[in-house]
């Protein structure tokens, strides 16, 4: 309510102030005011010349010349004066006053309110952080609670429980870098636990867009020490080998894992797919569907019959390998062209272009990614982070 009163006051005040000059009675033609301002300037200039002359900074003959010039200007202004007297009479001018005042005093309030209602967020209260923090105890908006915990952790960074609480929340919010730091702090303060190690490694992997970084590997290895039966660390470590290009070892690990796996394990399918992409012969035997990336690799599967080894790609001639990789990348590019909402895909594509030395394509993919991911803050952030890492300008 107060808001609308203030708005009304603002509009009324401004409208009144602006239309006030129009409301006054017309003065009789004051047309030579313009010339008066000029005359005032020239008279001042004459005085300055006199002052300079007494000061001795202007020679007498120069002063005389300057005076004559200014006098000519004065004469010209006086001569022009009658011209400007040819102004419309007060009556003709009055024709315009009423419509102008009416239009102004109607348009200002109507249009300003109309535009504001169209573009503004009327009735939405301000949300200063302090208020939200004190309210956070009652109303439990997740964002406010996070803000409150963050505030506490800034004051008490030694509070391991706080880090433990906020880490999974960060992860769920997609703030992987913050999540990794929080898990790390919790581990540091409260010691290792399977949950924390797992959380840390997952956050790191998400930060690196699916690549398993060194610290995540170490965390998984520690986790295996704590819990030798855990399956997930073994899967990730195998994947890490694949990412290193140690394809035979990775395939062997996948096979061991599959052998150990219960028939109904949900991760069986993932393992089979990975294995299929590494070992075409196994894929044919298993008759499993390959995923989208592997469809792009189909030509190599045909070649693969001649070279059934798992490291088919590695053993190709450099030209063939280049062609294979290009096909993969182009396949990914085509897929993203059709559906550009996959942030991870964009990251993969940009990185691939960069690795292949196709910098122009990388820059282009970056701008396409930005265009496609508009509105997807998390995805956009991933792409921007990568762009910064790769120094692709911004």
């Amino acid at each position, binding site marked *: 309510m107060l808001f609308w009163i203030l708005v009304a006051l603002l509009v009324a005040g401004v409208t009144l102030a602006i239309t006030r000059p129009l409301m006054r009675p017309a003065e009789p033609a004051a047309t030579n005011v313009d010339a008066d301002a*000029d005359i005032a300037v020239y008279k001042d200039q004459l005085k300055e010349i006199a002052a300079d002359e007494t000061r001795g900074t202007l020679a007498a003959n120069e002063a005389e010349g300057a005076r004559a010039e200014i006098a000519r200007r004065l004469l010209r202004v006086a001569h022009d004066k009658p011209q400007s007297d040819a102004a*419309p009479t007060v009556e003709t001018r009055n024709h315009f006053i009423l419509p102008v005042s009416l239009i102004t005093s109607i348009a200002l309030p109507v*249009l300003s309110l109309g535009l504001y209602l169209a573009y503004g967020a009327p009735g939405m209260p301000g949300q200063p952080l302090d208020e939200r923090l004190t309210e956070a105890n009652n109303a439990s908006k997740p964002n406010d609670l996070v803000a409150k915990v963050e505030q506490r952790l800034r004051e008490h960074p030694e509070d391991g429980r706080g880090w433990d609480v906020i880490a999974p929340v960060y992860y769920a919010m997609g703030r992987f870098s913050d999540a990794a730091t929080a898990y790390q702090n919790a581990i540091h303060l409260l010691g290792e636990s399977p949950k924390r190690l797992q959380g840390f490694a997952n956050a790191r992997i998400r930060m690196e867009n699916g690549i398993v970084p060194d610290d995540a590997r170490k965390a998984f290895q520690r986790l295996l020490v704590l819990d030798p039966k855990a399956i997930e660390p073994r899967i990730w470590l195998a994947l890490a080998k694949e990412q290193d290009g140690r394809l035979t070892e990775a395939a062997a690990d996948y096979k061991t894992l599959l052998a150990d796996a219960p028939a109904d394990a949900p991760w069986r399918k993932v393992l089979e797919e990975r294995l299929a992409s590494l070992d075409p012969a196994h894929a044919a035997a298993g008759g499993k569907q390959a995923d989208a990336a592997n469809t792009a690799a189909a030509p190599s599967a045909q070649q693969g019959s001649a070279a059934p080894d798992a490291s088919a790609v590695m053993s190709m001639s450099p030209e063939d390998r280049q062609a294979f990789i290009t096909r993969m990348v182009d396949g990914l590019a085509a897929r993203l062209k059709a559906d550009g909402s996959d942030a991870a895909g964009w990251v993969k594509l940009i990185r691939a272009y960069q690795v292949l030395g196709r910098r122009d394509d990388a820059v282009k993919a970056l701008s396409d990614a930005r265009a496609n991911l508009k509105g997807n803050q998390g995805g956009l952030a991933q792409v921007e982070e990568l762009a910064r890492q790769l120094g692709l300008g911004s």
Partner: protein
Amino acid sequence: MIVELGHFALILALLVAVVQVVVPAFGAHVRDERMMRVAEPAAISQLLLIAIAFFALMHAYVTSDFSVLNVAENSHSTKPLIYKMAGVWGNHEGSMLLWVLILALFGAAVALFGNNLPPTLKARVLSVQASIAVAFLLFSLLTSNPFVRLDPAPPDGNGLNPILQDPALAFHPPFLYTGYVGFSIAFSFAIAALIEGRIDAAWARWVRPWTLAAWMFLTIGISMGSWWAYYELGWGGWWFWDPVENASFMPWLAGTALLHSALVMEKREALKIWTVLLAILTFSLSLMGTFIVRSGVLTSVHSFAVDPARGVFILAILVFFTGGGLALFALRAKDIQPGGLFQPISREGSLVLNNLLLVTAAATVLVGTLYPMALEGLTGEKISVGPPFFNMTFGPLMIPLLIALPFGPLLAWKRGDLLGAMQRLAFAFLAALVTVVTVYAVEHRGPWLAPFGIALGVYVMAGAIIEWANRVKLGSAGRDEIVRRATNLPRSAYGTLFAHFGVGMLMVGIVATSAYREEHILAMKPGDRVMVDGYQVTFTKVERGRGPNYTEDIADFNVKRDGETVATLQPAKRLYDAPPQPTTEAGIHAAWRGDLYVVIGDAQPGGGYAVRAYFNPLVRFIWLGALFMFFGGGISLSDRRLRVGAPARTRAAMPVPAE
């Protein structure tokens, strides 16, 4: 509620600006004094409304109201208060709001203090000024609205780029914008005069104070930016010919030319057409600068192409005002009566030379700035023009300008006496000669031209003093007479003295620091020492520290000269919390002879640190020179002459000392 009130005020300001364009212009056309008078309350209301919007946004920043998208994207709850406030203009939307605020400020100033203007001219000036405001308010509301809300609000903001969290940079944009935008008044005056078809000496007198004020602020704004780059970027450099710097430097060069040509126009009514053209061009360069900085073409032509809404909008504004202004100029210029005549060797002649050189210099900077962008846009090729281009094109233009500078004020109007001026400058030539010999004697390294460059600066400084000495008859009159003359001298004469002296200092500083800087890049361990231009610099230790929103490694350097400790420098490397970005803080020991400048880099394997140590001789002269120019402008601005020309009643009330 306050945020929403700000949004509403901004919309209302747009409508008020529209009224301010239409009604006074129409009133001036039909010669109705009442409609013309609408301009004044409109200009003042516009200022108040934009100020409400601006402070509403600032309030949102200070209270960390992350329900405002702009705040969430650019602020953070842990930022110190001063940077929360400065954060308002540390981003695109907020800085455009500051832009229109300053635009409105100048409009309101003309409305309030322009009592000496002829009413029709004033109405037209305010109308043109408001048309610029309409364009930029539309731009702000349609493409860069700072009041977009976010629901639910995020827990914290993204933070301000740490490199911008610095006092000099926090207050650099307001000064810079005041300069940029101030030239809009000169533009409005030019357009109003062209519409009116009446351009005379009085016009120049009305324009000069506004141009001078804009020029002053631009001068200080640019030098603050350069000062910041010097101590924050950690490379010891102070000017990089970066497109952002050039964007502000071009209007400065054109504005300096305008300042001088308006002087000729006021005194002699000569150069009328040229001055009007220059007024249009100066503001066009300001708009171009805004386009370069604000459209996104800078970061990359590609990202510009991805989100062209903003860039195209500013481009349209640029084309409309530049194109419209020039078209009107072409239409009306032939009607302008030629003014006073003068010989080539005269005060006017020297100012024409000044104008030609400054405008050519502005053109070279323009080419050097736009060519790489155009090339990238057309062919995708990225080239960098960089200092060598500017040193080869811009440098040689400055030499004749500086040689001619002291002559200008010594030459008489209409027909000057070159020989007489040279005689009077004999002392300056002598000072220059002594400088060349001394510098050669002291410094054996560096380019052979450098002593001449320093001498040129000294010559300009001496020339400025000679001009003053000449006016007070120093050496030929008695002491009382000299004091009397010195106190009676118009303030604008002191303005000239200070500004020209500052130019000389600037030149000395630039040449000395570019030619004779000493640079050491090395890996140092605690306990290591290095000799830098007579200073013994010992690296003592590195400590970890924690600031309000960053952690830092602070190094400790003990600086000795002739065995005595003169300073302890503490350069630091900071890592900000949000966003996590590193910045460097240089440790600087400033003395008259130059700055000792130490920066600490990354830790090296084996316990050492990368350290860069510089000695920048006379580098302070650069900013001192700029300060002198600023104060010179201020003294001139306080001169009665630039303010009067007022209607009779105020004139009578004003005391007229010693006249």
